[in-house]
């Protein structure tokens, strides 16, 4: 029994190792396949939302649902096929631009003159904030020059403001 046990145990261990390796390999393969499939599907979703259908509806490619639309089915098929072939994102987008024109992209690229499209709202926001801060500063400066401040501290005034607010608002 003593002899057998280690032998058996060794066999079991060996088998277990092989089994585990096979299982691991199988699982890894499955996982890679699943991940790859999942990745492809996610890429189709992502790229399909970066383009519009060119039928004139201006809808996102994957959301165009016109019955009998001449373009969306064909474009989706082309997209899926390009992703399946392993073409990179930029390659796919370039191919679509070549075929359907720049209007196929749902948003301007962040290059050249199109950068202005992305920057202008933020420039406007920054300019606006700066404008408000400068205005507030100028007003406060004029207010302090124009009328002497009462000799009360902030919390005291807050107390009165709160009291006035309660008594007048209700």
């Amino acid at each position, binding site marked *: 029994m003593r002899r057998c046990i280690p032998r058996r145990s060794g066999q079991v261990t060996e088998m277990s190792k092989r089994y585990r390796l096979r299982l691991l390999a199988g699982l890894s393969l499955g996982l890679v396949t699943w991940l790859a499939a999942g990745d492809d599907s996610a890429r189709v979703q992502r790229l399909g939302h970066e383009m519009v259908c060119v039928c004139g509806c201006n809808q996102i490619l994957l959301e*165009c649902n016109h019955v009998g639309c001449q373009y969306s089915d064909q474009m989706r098929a082309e997209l899926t096929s390009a992703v399946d072939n392993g073409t990179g994102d930029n390659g796919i987008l370039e191919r679509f631009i070549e075929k359907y024109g720049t209007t196929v992209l749902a948003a301007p690229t962040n290059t050249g003159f199109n950068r202005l499209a992305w920057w202008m709202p933020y420039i406007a926001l920054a300019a606006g904030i700066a404008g408000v801060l400068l205005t507030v500063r100028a007003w406060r400066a004029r207010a302090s020059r124009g009328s002497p401040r009462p000799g009360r501290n902030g919390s005291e005034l807050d107390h009165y403001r709160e009291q006035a607010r309660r008594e007048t*608002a209700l």
Partner: protein
Amino acid sequence: MSSLGSFALLLALSLAAYCFLAGLWALSRRESGSELLVETARRAGIASFGMVALASAILVVAAFRNDFSIAYILHHSNRALPLPYKFAVLWSGQEGSLLFWSLLLSAYGLVLRLRYRTDERLFAYASTVIAAVQSFFLLLLNFAARPFAATPGQPGSDGNGLNPLLQYPEMVIHPPMLYLGYIGFTVPFAFALGALAMRYPGERWIHITRRWTMVTWAFLTCGIFLGAHWAYYVLGWGGYWGWDPVENASLLPWLTGTAFLHSVMMQEKRGMLKTWNMWLIFSTFLLAIFGTFLTRSGVVNSVHAFAQSSIGDWFVAFLAVTLAACIFFYAKNRAHLRSEHRLESLVSRESSFLFNNLVLLVACFAVLWGTLFPVISEWVEGHKVTVGPPFFNKVMVPIGLFLLFLTAVGPLLAWGKTSFSSLRQNFLWPASGAMAIGVLLVATPPAWGAPFGMRPWQHISYFYSLMAAMLGTLVVLTVISEFLRGGRVIAAKTARGLPLSMVQLARRNTRRYGGYIVHFGVALVFIGILGSALNRDAEKEMSFGDSLALGPYNLVCRSYTQEETPNYSANIAIMDVLRDGRQVDTLYPESRFYAATEQPQHVPAVRSTLREDLYVVYEGQNPETGRPIIKAHLNPLVSWIWIGILVMASGTILALVPNRVAAPAALAAKQGADAQMHPAPVGAGD
């Protein structure tokens, strides 16, 4: 009949032109006897409404009588069109919608001219400005877009039919609401320009126009959201807002109008921002006209736009003349618009209004910029680009979140100055509540379903959703805390229960508490929008008994059927909805084909709950296999948007109700027009 309609429009133009010219002459001369001329101008303005109403009635009757000798009726109606949609014919095409626009403008003018005794001189100025706008639209109707133009040759036995997208009950309400909003801004614009032209003393014109502005804003808000609701239930792509140029055009005046509603309070309370407010209302009116120009000129591509026509040039000319008039009167009388008070502190109600205005205007600029960028790009680079949802979502979402933050913070700041201790006291428990919601949404497992189990580090859209949930909660809690605080004071004084005290509180200062309820609604809308980051969909060819799993639901195809009506034929899928193996609903998505227009149309079926919408579309049939294709969307929290808009509408209605006990600010406002503006007691009526 068409001749009578054309004659009515010509007469309406003559009357409106007389109202404008006589008013202008009398008001600029100020001679004795000019009152009589002003009175004749007023009466001509009233009569112009009668003529436009007659022309509109004739067009609607022509639609009911299937009078295809009128080209407009031939192109937008047909015999089988259901009766309620015959009304919608009035605004379904270019010419009819301009007539409808004129009708509503004349109606606003009518109300204004009937209420002229409030302040005869100011109303005379406003009436003259409105008459100028009326004249422009009547010129269009008489010479550029004639609704009573005859059908060339022999009219056919049936018309081309109404666009299938417009054959939906909401379409009978949505355009009138939107137009009432667009056109309504003409009234505060007319008062503002009139007040500037006559150097009207004090802020009384703002008190007079406050209700007009709020009603107009409410109409525009409801119009925009009805449009979103219609898009969701009719267009069948599973969304409610696509950043289409026409949708954007409606948003532009809404954003500046919202900014005006806020900043005008600073003028009422503190005599500040007079120039700013004047230009805000000018901009709002100009943007409403600009939006109309966008949708009717063919400048930008949109599925919602009217047919391309030459009337764009007319609108450009009108915009240029209006802008020139605004600049002229501003340059002439700008000294009249000097502020009476200055800002004391950056942490104050005043500065929160400034930032609120800034964010709203930046949002307006971003929408306008994105809408026009394809045209600008074509000018500069020689080729068009598309500026669609990815651009707007990326730019507008952070701006919207900033605005939501200000919505939460602004109302809790005091006029003048707020100390840190006061801030801490006001924000402690709302901020704690918002943080708790954030922790709950992140800490819960994704298996609980959207919106639980958010992982903001996985994607920027999840981060934005989490922020929207937290800031939305902050707004809701700050509103609740304001009601509770005021309610407790009244309860202590009157010994009534807290709920009754809060009702009394709202009735005593309807504008302020109505505003809070509007903010509450805005927070609900944002919470609803945050769900869009968690949308899912699935598509499958389905035969009898096939099932499609999506989230917690399992859709099982029970059967297909067909329906034939004189107006359309439809293929209908009958889908059982199962949840946890138990049938919870049956949905009937349709695919219709309209005979007159020869256009297909999806009619989605939606199972709506507070948590999510199951949105099922009959996409059509696979031409190779002949099997129907079903697409299902799972859209979390969409119902919150519709609830939010109802809450916003309720808040606006409350704000329009007069105070039960007049607040000191309101009493001060009723003093004579010549009275100098005094700052109202802090917090009163705001």
